[in-house]
C-alpha cells in the first residue's frame, strides 16, 4: 500500500491527458459554400468511390479517370472548384456512411439507384443504364443461372449483382463474396469460381482485354446509376441534376459516353 501512495501525484497526469484529449476533439472546421452550394472543404468537391471500376473510375498514370470522373468534373467546373477523389471500401459508400460523416460531397461509384440506398442518401437523376450479366471462362458452357447449379458464383460485396444472385438462385448455387472487383474477376480467370455476376459494361470492358473470358447472359435488370448526395444538401443535388441535364442536351454526355464505352448511349 505504501508503494502505491507514492504514485498519487502521478495519478493527476492521466486525468490531465484525458481532459486535453477531450477538448482537442471539439475543434475543427465546418463546411464551406461555393456558389451557394455546401461543400465539405473549401475549393474542392470531394468524390467518394471504390477504385477501380473500369471504365467508370480507374487509375491511369497518376490520375484517376473514367466516365464518372468526367461527369463530376462537369459539376466541379460549374461550381468553380476542383474534384478530389477519395478511395475507400464500397460498403461504406453504398450505406451512406461516407456521405453522412462529410467524408465526401458526392458518391460516384457506378452505383445503382435502389430503394434501400435511397433511404440513406439522395440520388441524382439517372445518368447511366446498366444491367447485370455473367462473366465466365470461354467455353465453360455456363450460359445462365440454371447451368450454375452445384457450381460457384462470385459476387462483389454490397452490389446489386449480389442481391440479384441471392434472389434468383437457390442454395444449390454457392455464392462467394469478394471485396474487390479485381479479386472477383481474377477468381473467374483462375477458376476458383465458375462465374461472376456484375454490371455488364464492366464485364464487357474486362472481356475485351482478357480473351480467355467472355460475358454471357445479361439479365435485363435495367438498373439506373445515380450520383449520391447527402440528404439535406439540396442545393448540390439540384446543381448535379442541372449539370447532367445540360450535358445531355448539348451533346457532352453522348461524347463522353462514346469515349468510355465505345458505343452510342442507350438513353437520352
Amino acid at each position, binding site marked *: 500500500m505504501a508503494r502505491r501512495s*507514492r504514485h498519487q501525484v502521478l495519478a493527476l497526469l492521466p486525468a490531465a491527458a484525458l481532459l486535453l484529449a477531450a477538448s482537442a476533439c471539439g475543434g475543427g472546421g465546418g*463546411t464551406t459554400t461555393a456558389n451557394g452550394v455546401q461543400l465539405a*472543404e473549401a475549393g474542392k468537391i470531394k468524390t467518394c468511390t471504390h*477504385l*477501380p471500376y473500369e471504365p467508370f473510375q480507374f487509375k491511369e498514370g*497518376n490520375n484517376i479517370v473514367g466516365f464518372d470522373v468526367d461527369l463530376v468534373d462537369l459539376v466541379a467546373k460549374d461550381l468553380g472548384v476542383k474534384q478530389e477523389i477519395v478511395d475507400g471500401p464500397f460498403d461504406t459508400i453504398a450505406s451512406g456512411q461516407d456521405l453522412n460523416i462529410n*467524408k465526401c460531397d458526392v458518391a460516384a461509384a457506378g452505383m445503382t439507384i435502389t430503394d434501400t440506398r435511397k433511404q440513406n442518401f439522395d440520388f441524382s437523376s439517372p445518368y447511366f443504364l446498366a444491367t447485370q450479366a455473367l462473366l465466365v471462362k470461354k467455353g465453360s458452357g455456363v450460359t445462365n443461372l440454371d447451368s450454375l447449379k452445384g457450381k460457384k458464383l462470385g459476387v462483389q460485396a454490397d452490389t446489386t449483382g449480389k442481391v440479384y444472385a441471392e434472389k434468383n438462385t437457390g442454395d444449390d448455387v454457392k455464392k462467394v463474396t469478394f471485396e*474487390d*472487383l479485381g479479386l472477383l*474477376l481474377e477468381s473467374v480467370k483462375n477458376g476458383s469460381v465458375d462465374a461472376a455476376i456484375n454490371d455488364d459494361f464492366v464485364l464487357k470492358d474486362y472481356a475485351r482485354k482478357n480473351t480467355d473470358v467472355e460475358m454471357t447472359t445479361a439479365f435485363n435488370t435495367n438498373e439506373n446509376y445515380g450520383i449520391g448526395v447527402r440528404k439535406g444538401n439540396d442545393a448540390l443535388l439540384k446543381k448535379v441534376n442541372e449539370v447532367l441535364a445540360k450535358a445531355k442536351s448539348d451533346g457532352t454526355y453522348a461524347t463522353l459516353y462514346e469515349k468510355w464505352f465505345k458505343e452510342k448511349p442507350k438513353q437520352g
Partner: protein
Amino acid sequence: MSRRQRARLFRGIQYGALVVILVVLAFAADWGKIATSFLDLDVAAELFPNVIVIALKNTIIYTALGFSFGIVFGVVLALMRLSSVGPYRWIATLYIEFFRGLPALLVFLAVGFGIPTAFPGTLIDRMVIITLALGIVASAYMAETIRAGIKAVPKGQVEAARSLGMSPARTMITVVIPQAFRIILPPLTNELIMLVKDSSLVFFIGSTLDQQELAQFGRQALSQYRSMTPFVVAGLCYLIITIPLSILQQRLERKANTTAKGGK
C-alpha cells in the same frame, strides 16, 4: 539395429519425405501461371516509383503517428493501472481489456465513422483520425507491456531515488520509466512491427491517390493490372520495413540479456 542407427534412419526418412513433398509441389504447381500472375516484371516496373514515394512513405508515416500516440497514451494508461486511485485503475483496465479484445478493424470503423458522427459538422483532420485509430489499438497493447516494464524495475531503485529526496513523480520520470523502457524495448519493437501491418486498415477511412498506403496501393493496382504482382511488390515493401526492425529487436534483446547478466 542400434539406437544411433535407428535415429539416423528416422532422420533419413524425414529428409526423404521433405524432398518428395518439394518435388511433388514443384511438378504439380503451374509455375508458368504463377510467374505471369505473381511475378509480372512489366507490371512491377509500372508500380515504381509510386510504390516507394507514396505507398511506402505513407505506411511509415501512419505507423509513426500511431506508434507515437500509442506510446504516450500507453505510459498514461500504465500509470493509471498502477495508480492507487480506484477509478483510474478501473478506467485503464476497462480501456485495455476493451480495445485489446476487439479486432483492429472494428476499432478503425468505430473511430473513422464514430468521431465524425459524434461531432457532426466538425471536419476532423484525416491524420488525427488515423493517429487515434491506430494509436488506440497500439496503446491498449503497449500499456500492458509498459506496466510490466515499470514493475520489473527493482524496488531498490525507487527506494534509492526517494532517499535522495526525489519526489514520487520525479522518481517515476527520471529513474523508473527510463529503466522500464530499456527492459521493454524488444517487446515494443514487436508492437511496432504489428502496427506497420495494422496501418493497412487506413484503407477503411478512405484516401486519395497520394494518401494510399502499401496494402491499398497493392489492392488498387491488383484490380488495375489484373495481376497479383502488385501484392508481391507491396509485400516486399513491408518486409523492407519489418525485417530491419526484427534485426534491431534481436540486437536489443541480446543487449538487454547481457545487461541483465551484469554487463558481461
